[in-house]
């Protein structure tokens, strides 16, 4: 019981404690301590889940192998983002809702909502916490209070809430299908019950299909699938960089997790073809569109945002193929992408602090001005381009081989073509940043060493995952795949 409650309680209490810490510097210390406690709580929960297979706490909390995998991912990303923020926030002036105190408090609330999504046993609660992720992060997106940030925050709240309203409708329709197929009322939203009773939903096939389409559009909006991706580049570009990392490496996975749960239920009821074809379609569309739009970007953080759309597309394609190998590849890809995108957004954060913006036209002489950051940027850039020896090469290779093995030749060719375009575009955009002479900084700026250390750890993890999958990590992945393909 407490095992699953603890990871949820710590961030809630942390948010309150941080808000109460009014002395300068105290907020960062409280946040750091709470972060360590939270990591311990998540690690404990993951180990217990691993030993027990499925952990249940009351009627509304449950975690299985799939939840455990995503818990590990969000735990790591949050720890990185928090460590980076403590250095990053030194320059933030105190304002209403935009002081470091509010930053940490909202970040912990944001973490709470994402963890709650992973631990909900009920599709209704899952929806509620999914909407809550938007609410918790909207003020963080608009944190800088500039024209761009306010507009991005507004757009984010509006587009994501409209999107997620579709998912609510999808959830209701699935509930209706379950109730009509004789699943008892209060349990008709429980994903484990629904997955076990999926075959009984078959008479209500039309409703189940309707439910999945609405869920795919709704949660797909938050994943950033094209053509519902419009909020994503704005939010990622305008948010403070640690938050961009949390959005890209945490929130998008969280939304995809919701779709994975729906996919498992609908696949059980109708056979895998229907839901897989939809995911494959969204995946290919997102990949293609993002690959083309990366070429024309003029801002580093927007470029990274489009790259997130691209990689979410790749993961969706992996899920859409649906063989155990492809699912393994898709989950591994999500994990690798989280690491690489954290690294890159941290690098972009340093660049924005040093140069005042992250414009691809104005930033020059990076190698000379910020040597550590530019190593991180290049390593991360090579990683998201899918080059060996980084982890994304491995996961993209697995997904591609699964595509060929299942005869999806057209999709495979599209994927390969998109990868080449992205590779060329990244080379074209990143290389000029490094060379040349840096302008004098607008204000004194020194990179803070723990921030660089965090980037180093991200890069190291990516390198390790590209060369060798640790046995414990493989087991974690296999347990998650087993949930998706019983």
């Amino acid at each position, binding site marked *: 019981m407490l095992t699953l409650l603890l990871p949820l309680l710590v961030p809630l209490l942390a948010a309150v404690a941080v808000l109460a810490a009014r002395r300068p510097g105290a907020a960062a210390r409280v946040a750091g301590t709470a972060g360590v406690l939270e990591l311990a709580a998540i690690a404990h929960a993951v180990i217990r889940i691993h030993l027990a297979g499925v952990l249940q706490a009351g009627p509304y909390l449950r975690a299985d192998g799939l939840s455990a995998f995503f818990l590990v991912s969000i735990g790591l990303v949050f720890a990185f983002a928090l460590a980076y923020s403590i250095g990053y926030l030194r320059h933030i002036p105190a304002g209403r809702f935009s002081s470091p105190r509010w930053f940490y408090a909202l970040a912990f609330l944001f973490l709470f909502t994402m963890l709650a999504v992973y631990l909900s046993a009920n599709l209704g609660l899952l929806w509620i916490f999914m909407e*809550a992720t938007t609410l918790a992060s909207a003020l963080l997106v608009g944190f800088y209070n500039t024209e761009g940030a306010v507009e991005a925050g507004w757009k984010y709240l509006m587009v994501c809430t409209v999107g997620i309203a579709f998912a609510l409708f999808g959830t209701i329709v699935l509930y209706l299908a379950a109730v009509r197929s004789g699943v008892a009322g209060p349990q008709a939203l429980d994903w484990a019950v629904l997955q076990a009773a999926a075959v009984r939903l078959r008479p209500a096939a039309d409703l189940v299909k309707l439910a999945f389409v609405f869920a795919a559009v709704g949660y797909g909006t938050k994943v950033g699938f094209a053509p519902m991706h419009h909020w994503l580049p704005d939010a990622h570009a305008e948010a403070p960089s640690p938050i961009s990392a949390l959005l890209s490496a945490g929130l998008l996975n969280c939304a995809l997790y919701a779709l994975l749960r729906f996919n498992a239920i609908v696949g059980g009821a109708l056979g895998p073809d229907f839901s897989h074809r939809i995911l494959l379609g969204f995946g290919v569309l997102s990949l293609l569109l993002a690959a083309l739009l990366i070429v024309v970007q003029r801002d580093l953080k927007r470029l990274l945002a489009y790259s997130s759309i691209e990689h979410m597309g790749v993961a969706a394609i992996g899920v859409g193929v649906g063989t155990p190998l492809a699912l393994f590849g898709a989950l591994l890809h999500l994990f690798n992408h989280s690491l690489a995108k954290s690294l890159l957004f941290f690098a972009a954060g340093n660049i924005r602090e040093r140069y005042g913006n992250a414009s691809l036209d104005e930033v020059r002489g990076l190698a000379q001005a910020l040597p550590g950051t530019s190593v991180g940027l290049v390593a991360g850039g090579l990683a998201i381009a899918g080059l060996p020896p980084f982890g994304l090469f491995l996961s993209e290779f697995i997904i591609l081989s699964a595509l060929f093995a299942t005869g999806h030749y057209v999709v495979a060719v599209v994927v390969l073509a998109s990868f080449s375009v992205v590779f060329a575009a990244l080379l074209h955009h990143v290389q000029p940043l490094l060379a040349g002479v840096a302008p004098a900084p607008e204000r004194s700026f020194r990179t803070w060493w723990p921030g660089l250390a965090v980037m180093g750890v991200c890069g190291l993890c990516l390198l390790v995952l590209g060369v060798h999958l640790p046995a414990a990590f493989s087991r974690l992945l296999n347990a998650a795949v087993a949930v998706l393909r019983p």
Partner: protein
Amino acid sequence: MGWIDAVAANLLASSAGLLLILALLMAATTRARTCILLFGLQSAVIAAQIAALARLHHFAEGWAVAALVVVVKVVAIPWVLLRITTALQTTPIAAAAIGPTASVFVGSGLILLSFAVVRPYVAELGVDPARLAAAVAVVLIGGLLMVTRRKALMQVLGLLVLENGIFLAALTTTLGMPLVVEIGISFDLLMWVFLMGLFVFRIRDTFDHVDVSRLRRLRG
């Protein structure tokens, strides 16, 4: 207590018509305050409908959900929205991309459309076609408000109307979601309105207007 049941049944039968009329009035109105009051009325009709269903089908959860709707959607949200319009002190006109006449015309078209789209499901689900059609129509008219109104506040209202429609659809087809879920959804909605209010003020402070159609900095 036969007459209470009779009243409840009557209310249920006439609620679809009431909701459609309210939705059309919303499409027609040009003043933000009127629109907020109409939203409150719409929520009140929905609350009455839940209470009637709770009475007729003898399920206790219904009373709690009805009370929740009254507190959140009839009182709290309209109150917050009215406070915002007062504080903003902008022109009370809810500037729209199309005029009220065209708006009503499109709205009527959407109502006809909803009657057409629910037809295949009515027989299978065994529900009152008018009530299901009213739910779909409320969703569509909420969408219409969001698409055609340019003021930030009216877009918020459009989404609230849309959500009311989804709520109605759930109510008509399944007697609503479990209570815990309803409470969570209401809480989310309330927080969302607060945050939107916060952003409306920020838009005013940073841009000196609340015309969302002029937010065009971020492109591509």
